[in-house]
């Protein structure tokens, strides 16, 4: 039985701030910082937005593009590292907001930046084993960066939702696999408002080792070459890492460009690969093959080999805004307003 993507939806908040504006406050050359990270601006959630509202918006966009009855959804998984509650699921609110309750299972997931793709894998298992008809996997974050920390230049907000099933799939997931080790490159302790990271340790032994290993395993198992794929999406904590990873693996800039959103919206953490994949699906056509590898600190990578099906021709892609449309209509913030939006100003 083929299992794959029946529908998808994306959401990126409308507000933006530039690295230059952040650097202006902290006495750092923000423009140079932005160039170094290959981030031109990052998305900022409105004060009334959080992972639940972002996940809901993405899920509603997903449902508006298909004719699946929400009552047929058997599972919803919301992957994030910024769930609004420590105890109380985000997924129940999303489920209620898309009229999918009550006959379904719901859980919130966390695996740093790859909890959304972990949700896709879980839904694939449930659909493939015929335990459920449809499953929803969402990756969304309103990620945190301490004031003045390097993360503040990249940590942003956004998310994407995927309806996984076996009927009328617009993209078949040919294979998924993961590569996981215990590598403490980035973490946030319970109750801490901001994460900590291992600086350069987040690179070679973490991001590059895990994505590279998962990607090479996938190419080996599928007996494919990078040139067999039309598009490649890699986790994108900044704009440089995925470009370097792609080059090391043998993918060209052209294969990566459509799914590389970090220069425009920053690092959306759990939303990063789901959003990058959504941007690729926004422009793909039947027969296109997509290579996607997510990365979550801690650490692990989920790789996907995907083929767009003929159903994409009749799919109602225009029923919801594309990622590219979300990038056009923006409102820029100065640091003062940004600090207020992000709750960085503590009132006595």
């Amino acid at each position, binding site marked *: 039985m083929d299992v794959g993507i029946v529908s998808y939806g994306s959401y990126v908040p409308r*507000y933006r701030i530039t690295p230059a504006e952040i650097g202006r406050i902290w006495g750092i050359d923000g423009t140079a910082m932005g160039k170094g990270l290959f981030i031109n601006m990052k998305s900022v959630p409105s004060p009334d937005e959080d992972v639940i509202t972002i996940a809901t918006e993405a899920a509603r966009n997903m449902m508006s593009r298909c004719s699946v009855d929400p009552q047929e959804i058997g599972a919803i998984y919301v992957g994030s590292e910024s769930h609004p*509650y420590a105890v109380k699921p985000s997924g129940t609110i999303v489920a209620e907001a898309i009229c999918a309750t009550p006959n379904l299972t719901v859980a919130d997931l966390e695996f740093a930046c790859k909890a959304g793709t972990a949700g896709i894998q879980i839904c694939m298992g449930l659909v493939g084993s015929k335990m459920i008809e449809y499953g929803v996997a969402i990756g969304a974050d309103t990620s945190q960066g301490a004031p003045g920390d390097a993360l503040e230049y990249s940590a942003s907000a956004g998310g994407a939702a995927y309806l996984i099933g076996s009927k009328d799939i617009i993209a078949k997931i040919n294979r998924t696999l993961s590569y996981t080790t215990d590598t403490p490159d980035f973490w946030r302790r319970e109750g801490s408002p901001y994460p900590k990271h291992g600086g350069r340790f987040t690179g070679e032994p973490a991001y590059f080792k895990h994505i590279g290993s998962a990607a090479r395993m996938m190419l080996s198992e599928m007996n494919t070459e990078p040139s067999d794929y039309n598009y490649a999406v890699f986790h994108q904590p900044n704009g440089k890492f995925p470009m370097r990873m792609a080059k090391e693996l043998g993918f060209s800039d052209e294969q990566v460009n459509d799914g590389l959103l970090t220069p425009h919206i920053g690092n959306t953490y759990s939303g990063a690969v789901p959003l990058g994949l959504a941007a690729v699906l926004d422009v793909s056509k039947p027969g296109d093959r997509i290579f996607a590898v997510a990365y979550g600190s801690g650490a692990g990578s989920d790789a996907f080999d995907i083929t767009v099906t003929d159903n994409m021709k009749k799919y109602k892609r225009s029923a919801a805004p594309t990622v590219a449309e979300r990038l056009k209509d923006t409102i820029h913030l100065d640091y003062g307003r940004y600090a207020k939006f992000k709750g960085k100003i503590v009132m006595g």
Partner: protein
Amino acid sequence: MSVARHWRETPGRYNLIGVKCGNCGKVFFPKRTLCPECRRSSMGKMNAYKLKAEGTVFTYSIIHDAPAENNSIKPYAVAMILTDDDVLITGQLVDVELEKVEIGMPVRAVLRKMSEDGETGVINYGYKFAPKN
């Protein structure tokens, strides 16, 4: 507002679910148990009705003197929205530059945080309206 009271109203707050009088066909939001036109003849006939999530700004006001819980978002716009099924709803306008708000502006309902019961209390979600893309 108590947790239970908000919970009872989530169908309306999350999904704009009101009622339609099974007697005269008029739609009401928020829901009510009797149709003010049909009165007794509407008893047991007020059926759940999901409003269209899109509409236009019927009229609006810019709030400068806000309740304390909205201090971080002021000034902001509150509007009466005429939904595409001709029902007037009041809600906050979000993701819009205030000088660009105008009567007739197309909007869509979005789920947003409405209030928080302090730092440890429940977060209440509900509909607001954003410009239609």
